[in-house]
C-alpha cells in the first residue's frame, strides 16, 4: 500500500522518532442492539447504558454535594476540586437532560405516526 | 437582629473614631494655649469609649441571662460603641520658669497645657487605623449583601 510505504519512507528519513502505525482500519463494529424504549428489546443493552449513565450522574451529584458540604464545614480547603466536581455534575446533568429530551421527542414523533 | 444592624455597629465605630480624631486635633491645636475662658492653661481632653449595651431581656425569672453561671459561655450583646463623654486629663500642667511672661504665676512659673505632641500623634494614628478598619467592615458588609442578592439571579 502506498500509504504504508510512504510512512516507512518518512520514518527512514527522520531520526526515527515518529513512526505512525498505519494498519488498515478495523472493520466498524455493529451498533449496540437498539431495543425499544420500554426496554423489551432483544439485548436490552441500551437500557443498561442509560441506567449506568443515570447512576453515574447521581454519583457525581452526590460527590459534588459532599464536597460543597465539606467546604462549608471547613473540613477541606480545596476550592478548585469542589468547583470542578460541581461543574462536572452540572454538565453531566445537562447532557443527560438533553438526551432525555431527545428521547421524548423521538417517542412522541413515533407515536404520532398513523400508518 | 435586622439586616442593617452590622451596618449600624460599624457606623457607631466610625462616629466614635471621628470624635476621637476631633478631640485629638483640638489638643494639638491648643498645645501651647496658656489662657482659657475657664482660667488657667488648656487641659488635654480625652474621649471615654464604652460598648453600647445590647437589648438585654429583663423579663422573666432570669434577668441576668445566665451570666452568673460559670459553666455557660458568656453570651455577647452587640450594639457597637458609644462615646460616653469628653473628660479632662487630670495630669498636672507643664511648668516653665519664665517670670517675664504676663501669664507667670506668683513663683514665676508659666502653666502650659499637659499636651505631648508625640502622644497625640500616636493616638491620632490609632484612631485613624480604627476608622479604616470600620470602613473595611462596611465594605465587607456591602459585598456580602450583594452576594445574597445574587442568589436571586438564575
Amino acid at each position, binding site marked *: 500500500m502506498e500509504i504504508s510505504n510512504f510512512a516507512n519512507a518518512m520514518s527512514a528519513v527522520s531520526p526515527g522518532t515518529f513512526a505512525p502505525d498505519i494498519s488498515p482500519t478495523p472493520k466498524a463494529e455493529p451498533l449496540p442492539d437498539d431495543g425499544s424504549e420500554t426496554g423489551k428489546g432483544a439485548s436490552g443493552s441500551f437500557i443498561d447504558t442509560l441506567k449506568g449513565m443515570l447512576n453515574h450522574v447521581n454519583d457525581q451529584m452526590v460527590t459534588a454535594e459532599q464536597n*460543597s458540604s465539606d467546604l462549608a464545614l471547613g473540613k477541606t480547603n480545596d476550592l478548585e476540586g469542589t468547583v470542578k466536581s460541581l461543574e462536572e455534575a452540572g454538565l453531566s446533568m445537562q447532557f443527560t437532560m438533553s438526551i432525555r429530551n431527545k428521547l421524548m421527542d423521538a417517542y412522541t414523533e413515533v407515536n404520532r405516526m398513523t400508518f | 437582629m435586622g439586616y442593617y*444592624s452590622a451596618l449600624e*455597629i460599624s457606623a457607631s*465605630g466610625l462616629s466614635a473614631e471621628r470624635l476621637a480624631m476631633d478631640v485629638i486635633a483640638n489638643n494639638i491645636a491648643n498645645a501651647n494655649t496658656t489662657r482659657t475662658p475657664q482660667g488657667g492653661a488648656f487641659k488635654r481632653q480625652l474621649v471615654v469609649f464604652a460598648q453600647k449595651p445590647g437589648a438585654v431581656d429583663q423579663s422573666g425569672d432570669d434577668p441576668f441571662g445566665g451570666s452568673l453561671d460559670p459553666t455557660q459561655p458568656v453570651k455577647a450583646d*452587640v450594639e*457597637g460603641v458609644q462615646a460616653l463623654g469628653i473628660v479632662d486629663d487630670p495630669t498636672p500642667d507643664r511648668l516653665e520658669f519664665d517670670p517675664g511672661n504676663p501669664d507667670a504665676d506668683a513663683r514665676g512659673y508659666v502653666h502650659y497645657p499637659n499636651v505631648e505632641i508625640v502622644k497625640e500623634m500616636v493616638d491620632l494614628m490609632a484612631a485613624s487605623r480604627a476608622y479604616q478598619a*470600620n470602613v473595611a467592615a462596611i465594605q*465587607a458588609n456591602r459585598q456580602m449583601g450583594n*452576594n445574597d442578592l445574587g442568589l436571586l439571579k438564575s
Partner: protein
Amino acid sequence: MADIAPPSLFGPTITLLQHAVKGAHLEHEQIANNLANVNTPNFERSTTNFKDALQASLGIPAPADELGLQTDDDRQFQVDDGSPPVPFDPQATVDETVQMRVDKSNVDVDQETTLLAANADYQSTVSQLVQQQYKFLREAIQEQTN
C-alpha cells in the same frame, strides 16, 4: 397519628449551605462590633462558633467500626455513639483571653481585619454554592438546560 413533615425539595446539603450563609452574617456582626470597639478600654472581643453549630446540625455519626461496645440493655452506656442532629443556632460567646494591652482590651485590629476578610470570602463562596444547588434544582424542575 404522627405528624409527617411534607416532603421538601431541599435536602440536607442545601439546608446546610443556607445555614452557613446565615452563620457568616452573624459572625460578621460580631467582627464589626469588635472593630467598632477596638479603642474601648476593658473590652472583650466576641465571636460565634458557627462552624461547630453547622457540624452539630448534621449530627455526629457514630463510628462505623464493628468494635463498638456490645450492650445487652438500654440502660448501659454507649461509648462515642455519635449525637443526633441539633437545630442550627449559633450563639455569640465572649472571648475571655487576656491580652497585655495597657487599656486591657483584647481586640487586635490586624487579626479582626483578617477575620473580616476571611469571613467575607467564606460567605461569598458558600452563597455561590447555594446558587449552584438552586440551579441544579431549577434545571431538573424545568426540564430545560440553559
